């Protein structure tokens, strides 16, 4: 009893038949072929599979592919503009915010949502904001620093774009 789904991922349209039980993360990885979104657990604890769905951050292991029918998705592969890295990707690189890199796509996607809601977070707000994403390599030290750096860079970028807010 397969069902037809279609969705937009990183601006491109995807259409496939799926089993109703197919998890969105499996759909993204195996049918759409976008393997940047990772799987690190089976209980929605680790956050490695975090993506954006219709503007909200979701752990794509807790969404069925059929639930994403008609949705707009953004995954890690959609963040960079050509070879121009997103400020968060750049900041993770600059601040050594990753080691093995396995949790990184989910971490960056979670951080993106965090900064969208709170462009100037305190250290504590960052730590609480990425609490649902587990990293075993970095002790989070440089991840928090990377998000602080990205917040600063993105803040400056936003100011440049809207001169009215410049005092």
């Amino acid at each position: 009893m397969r069902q037809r789904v279609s969705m937009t991922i990183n601006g491109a349209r995807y259409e496939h038949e799926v089993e109703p039980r197919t998890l969105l993360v499996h759909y993204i990885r195996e049918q759409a072929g976008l393997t940047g979104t990772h799987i690190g657990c089976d209980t929605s604890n680790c956050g490695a599979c975090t993506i954006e769905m219709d503007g909200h951050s979701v752990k794509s292991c807790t969404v069925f592919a059929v639930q994403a029918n008609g949705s707009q998705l953004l995954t890690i592969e959609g963040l960079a503009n050509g070879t121009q890295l997103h400020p968060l990707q750049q900041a993770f690189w600059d601040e050594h915010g990753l080691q093995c890199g396995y949790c990184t796509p989910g971490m960056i996607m979670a951080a993106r949502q965090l900064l969208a809601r709170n462009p100037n977070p305190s250290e504590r707000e960052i730590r609480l904001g990425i609490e649902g994403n587990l990293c075993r390599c970095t002790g989070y030290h440089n991840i928090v620093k990377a998000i602080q750096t990205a917040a600063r860079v993105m803040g400056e970028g936003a100011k440049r774009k809207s001169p009215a807010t410049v005092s």
Partner: protein
Amino acid sequence: MAVSQMIGASIKRREDPELVTGTGSFVDDLPQTAVLYMHVVRSTEPHARILGIETARAKEAGGVVAIYTGKDLRQEFQSPLPVTVTFVPEKKVPDQYPIAVDKVRYVGEPVAIVLATSRAAAEDAAERVEVRYEALPAVTDIEAAIAKGAPVIHESLGSNLSYDVQRSAGDIDAAFREAEVTVKQRLQQQRLIPIAVETRGVVADYRRFANSLTVWSSTQIPHFVKVWLAVILGIPESQVRVVAPDVGGGFGSKIRVYPEEVLTALASRKAGRPVKWIEDREENMRATHHGRSQIWDVEIAAKKDGTVLGLRATQWLDLGAYCSQFGTFQTIGLLVVQGPYRLKALDGRLVGIFTNRTPTDAYRGAGRPEATYVIERVMDLVAQATGLDPAAVRRKNLVRADEQPFTSLLGFTYDSGDYRAGLDRALELVGYEKLRQEQAEGRKHGRYMGIGLASYLEICGLGPAAPTQANTGVSLWGMGVVRLHFTGKATAITGSSPHGQGHETTFSQIVSDVIGIPPEDVDVIHGDTANGPMGMNTYGSRSTALDGNAVHISATRVRDKAKKIAAHLLEAAEDDIVYEQGKAFVKGSPSKSVTIQEIAMASFQTNRIPPGMEGGLEATTFYDPTNFVWPFGTHVCVVEVDPQTGAVRIARYLALDDCGTRINPMVVNGQIHGGIAQGIGQALLEEGVYGDDGQLKTGTLVDYLIPSAADLPFFELTETITPSPVNPLGVKGIGEAGTIASTAATINAVVDALQPFGVKDVDMPASPAKVWQLMHRNGGKKA
């Protein structure tokens, strides 16, 4: 940045652009066609006889290609899984095959494999496999396993003991006769589950008519896996290739040749198609080895001035159901328990015990966190018993700089370091005196701050070939190839295989520094047994100390040969050639020069190299150092305990580490950060708990807590730098130091915070419930 200053440069990692864009290649990301999916049916019983396995109904399920039980596969294995000697040649080793045949001994042990056209189909079919067990009584902890009349896990051994041996030196009775203070303490090392965020995974592709096998595995040890797949499956080793692609963390948990690597390869051979197995997390927590799981009983002889004279210590090790490949590496805990301190006598006993639980093996630090935990708790227990400050007790006992190279009771020679200077510097930077004042003031107002110290000394950089051959059964040397191409670009091959440590960046800096070409011009190859000679893989903080130096020596040999060619090209004597920043010139006339790119090209042209010289610029080094390396340092942890909830908050964490030369300080600090977090995880959060029924009760990330960002502060890092005299780069290891020190520092801080309540020890993890109970055991009355 001048290329001659590559050693010590925090250049950004070349690994990262792919990883931050989701274009890395972990095992599950590799494109495969016509692949079959393997699902492993695992024992649900901790200890049982297998009466029969019914697979007919499962074989009828959609998408199933084949199902094999242990009985079906037993004849295919030409050898059991490997177990190294590792410090305990006396141990009894029961055979372990990749899949159970007659009996299961832990929950999670493989009993059958299902091959199907999709993962879902394989899992669906696996639910129809019926295994009939005759349950046997299970032993689920160390004490039950050695109790009289305990059920025996391996009948052939007659008991649940693998070994019970002494490792002693000095006159322990004299030490206790001289003692003015003695303390007895039992110290727990709870069972830990490693949790690399990427679980294990294997893709195997066997080609029948070539009799060749290629395996991609999320492993720390591709070279060892290659050897053992060849031996176990009877395929010529030259026909086996193992690749470790991007590996999502290891921490020791990917250090052994695993049953699933053999089973996936065998499945491919039987099916004639590539086979893929990706572990899920629930499976990972039962099938991938665990760490620690020990009890230490210690008795200390000391003097009133804080001098520690002698130590009696028994390390009880829960091996789990089998001897894992490097499982007895953890006994190094007792062998180096003396740490950075003078000690007159050590009376040590090692007892290895089988239980019906997942086998234990190396987990970040493997034995050395336990050693540091014991000796650092001992220092604090002595401080408590004598009324001295913990820092004073350490200062009293630390080996002095003028005693180096110091030889320990059990015969290890430390390489270098001023341990006291490190302690004093850490105390000064953290503001120790002021913290003690704040603590005293806070206690008056019901605020419970604790300050914990850990002065560690770590043995790592495994290792010199002779002692590692004698003690582990494998000669552990470093391997490094440096090759200059026609155009002057370089390739370096290392026998070490990273899983987050940034080898490509660090090793390119080493080559760049010697040859004088930019690091971007150095490609670094690792983790592929088809590229370069046999390597000794990654564990025990050995990569830079062993393979880094091997690469360094190869690069130096390439440069020396380049100078010879340059002398020939410039028609000068070799002694007159100066080589600097990728250019060779005649002493005194820098305009008469050739670049390394020109020399590299000339090296392939017979008319441009000295007569009789072999062509090419390439060197291979098998590097065998004269000693281990011995990083050290002092960590200071400051905690606040909430008297309402018992919750422990890390208020500050300062780490002083001395790992010798730092090639890329940014990468070094990253290793320390992660190590500290993992040690704090053991101290405060993590525990693998089994029920009396032998079932793992903490079998998901809901029940097994690893630190999140909200549990940790920013860490304050500082260093002293004492280059190791052992190797040309002067480096010591740093991959495990954070974990080795931080568990002890954190627990010492918690116990220190609870001093007003008369608390002398707390079992890890120091959970809020446990801490609250300790604070309220006398109705909340203070001692």
